[in-house]
């Protein structure tokens, strides 16, 4: 097994020379500037820098790595299989298909999803899926940054296995600073309150994040209200589990008073506009209000089974479009979604990154200024082009922790290297379909 990006590979110097544009964050854009990387970190930004391997970036836009803050990588296998049905109906079909999945298929599908994400400029992702050890194996091999971990169920908790599961997973991530363990809980309606409390207890004990689908559909809020008398976020708060380590995915059906709770507890939200729209969940995620409240909101594609793309450039654009169409106003723009997909994503991961500055991790994406869809190009419209016109095909190279983990020139080789895998996966798809 080839393992990529382990600790100890640090120390190598790379200079990105004469970058045409460097989008340092959602506000600052610089021109014709160098970035010096040493080991896993950015050590300098300026003119006249040099050292180590020099990469000519005169024809590149450099931006910080993009974080897909909520996905299910292995669901890559279901892309294009279930394109109809509102969420709960869709979920029934998916759950049935999932019975056919083996650990090996999860490993293979996750790995291809990661290769695809890297090719789209995604440097990190937050994952929730069965057989997380298989996904972990693929993370180690591909060099991508990830937060993933066991999915706690009532069964696991009742059998007293949850702590063992979490500890064992943490153990497997040791030596990989780019991998974080999270405790996953699928949803309020799939587990008992004891399981949610147990998940929270473990995250506190081991200093981890908890990641959960919340207020995704009207049915969910209805069931929660009927069962508990409270809306989902209120209910989580009543269980005493809402805190700064909580990652709430979706939240299309959140109420204004629940936003206040999220703010007070400093929890994070991940908005998944394309998947929510495709599954016709029909909520109204109050993005402007959440950002104005100062809540950390990231952006995610959700799984390829419901998106079906794993391209965060598209997701940024869709996030703007959904808000503008829903609310008939234009106060969400390119800066907001760039910040969400990048800076806020790194805040969710609790990693010093998402901004191109000294001492931040060297997670970077290079886009090709020669691609026609990125032109006309100037300092004035570079951010606009990234959000409204770019797509994953514009990526020349993706760096994670100072290493080039994807380069456009490898595209064909990557495809040929996975031909057998694709065949194996297709056999599984044939059984499902």
């Amino acid at each position: 097994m080839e393992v990529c990006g382990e600790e100890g590979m640090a120390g190598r110097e790379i200079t990105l020379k004469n970058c045409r544009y460097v989008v340092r964050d959602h506000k600052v854009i610089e021109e014709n500037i160098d970035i010096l990387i040493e080991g896993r970190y950015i050590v300098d930004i300026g003119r006249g820098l040099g050292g180590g391997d020099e990469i000519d970036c005169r024809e590149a836009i450099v931006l910080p790595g993009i974080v897909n803050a909520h996905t299910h990588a292995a669901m890559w296998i279901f892309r294009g299989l279930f394109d109809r049905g509102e969420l709960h109906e869709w979920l029934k079909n998916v759950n049935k298909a999932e019975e056919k999945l083996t650990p090996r298929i999860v490993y293979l599908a996750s790995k291809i999803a990661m290769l695809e994400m890297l090719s789209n400029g995604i440097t990190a992702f937050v994952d929730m899926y069965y057989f997380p050890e298989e996904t972990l194996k693929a993370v180690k091999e591909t060099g991508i940054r990830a937060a993933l971990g066991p999915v706690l169920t009532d069964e696991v908790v009742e059998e007293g296995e949850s702590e063992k599961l979490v500890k064992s997973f943490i153990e497997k991530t040791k030596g990989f600073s780019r991998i974080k363990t999270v405790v996953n809980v699928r949803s309020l309606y799939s587990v008992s309150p004891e399981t949610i409390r147990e998940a929270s207890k473990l995250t506190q004990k081991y200093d981890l994040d908890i990641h959960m689908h919340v207020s995704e559909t009207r049915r969910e809020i209805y069931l929660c209200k009927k069962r508990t008398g409270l809306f989902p976020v209120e209910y989580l708060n009543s269980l005493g589990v809402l805190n700064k380590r909580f990652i709430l995915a979706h939240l299309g059906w959140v109420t204004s008073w629940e936003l206040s709770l999220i703010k007070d507890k400093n929890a994070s939200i991940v908005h998944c506009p394309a998947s929510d729209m495709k599954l016709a969940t029909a909520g109204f995620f109050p993005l402007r209000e959440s950002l104005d409240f100062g809540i950390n909101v990231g952006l995610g594609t959700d799984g390829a089974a419901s998106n079906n793309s794993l391209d965060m450039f598209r997701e940024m654009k869709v996030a703007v479009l959904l808000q503008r169409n829903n609310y008939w106003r234009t106060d969400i723009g390119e800066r907001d979604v760039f910040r969400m997909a990048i800076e806020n994503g790194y805040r969710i991961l609790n990693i010093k990154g998402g901004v191109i500055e000294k001492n931040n991790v060297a997670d970077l994406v290079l886009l090709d200024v020669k691609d026609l869809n990125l032109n006309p190009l100037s300092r004035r419209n570079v951010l606009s082009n990234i959000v409204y016109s770019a797509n994953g095909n514009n990526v020349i190279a993706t760096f994670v922790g100072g290493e080039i983990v994807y380069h456009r020139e490898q595209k064909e080789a990557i495809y040929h290297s996975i031909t057998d895998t694709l065949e194996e996966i297709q056999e599984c798809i044939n059984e499902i379909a």
Partner: protein
Amino acid sequence: MVIKEGFFKGLPVCVLFSGGKDSTYALHWAFLKGFDVRCLVTLKPRSEGSWMFHYPAVEVTKLQSEALGIPQIYRETLGIKNRELKDLKEALETASAKYGIKGVVTGALLSDYQRMNISLITEELSLKVYSPLWRKGQDKYMLELVEYGFKFIITSISVYGLPPNLLGRILKEEDVVYIARMARRYGFNPAFEGGEAETLVVDAPLFRKALRIVGEPIQVGEYNWRYVVKRAWLEEK
């Protein structure tokens, strides 16, 4: 080939209709979206303290229904917090049985209490819910109403900062600009989502006849005023 219901005429829906500007605007939106608006559903609270429904001049909605040429399900409710939700559910069940509706259109602007309660009820009845005005920019919305030909009067005032001379007369653009200025100064919602004032639409693009109102303002509290409708009738436009 089997043609699904609603394929040509759009989704059959009812509009939760109070006769005020928001539900009337939502009704127009539904038409513009191609929905098949089969009926209006109006609940008249018996008390002023309703959490869900518009109180003043609700009886006049019967004339608005006639002006629109859309049938109405009209029910009284006690205006007591949980009881009125039950009444709403029953009214929607009637709309579903009588008119085959599959969805509900509401004029909810900013009240999550209203929006979420309607969502919970419609989930139980397997009806879709549409709230086209939800969280829309409200200064602009008020101006658009006037610009698009919605003629409405204020029928109650419950906030400091709105003078009683606004009662009972059709609001013009300058009135809306003034209201927005007062809203900023005194910190109330410019579209009255917090119940700062209630409105009654007397004419709108889809009205076949215009509503005429005769009434008088009465003071019911230090900053509380009502416009009591004495007589209402429809006139050819």
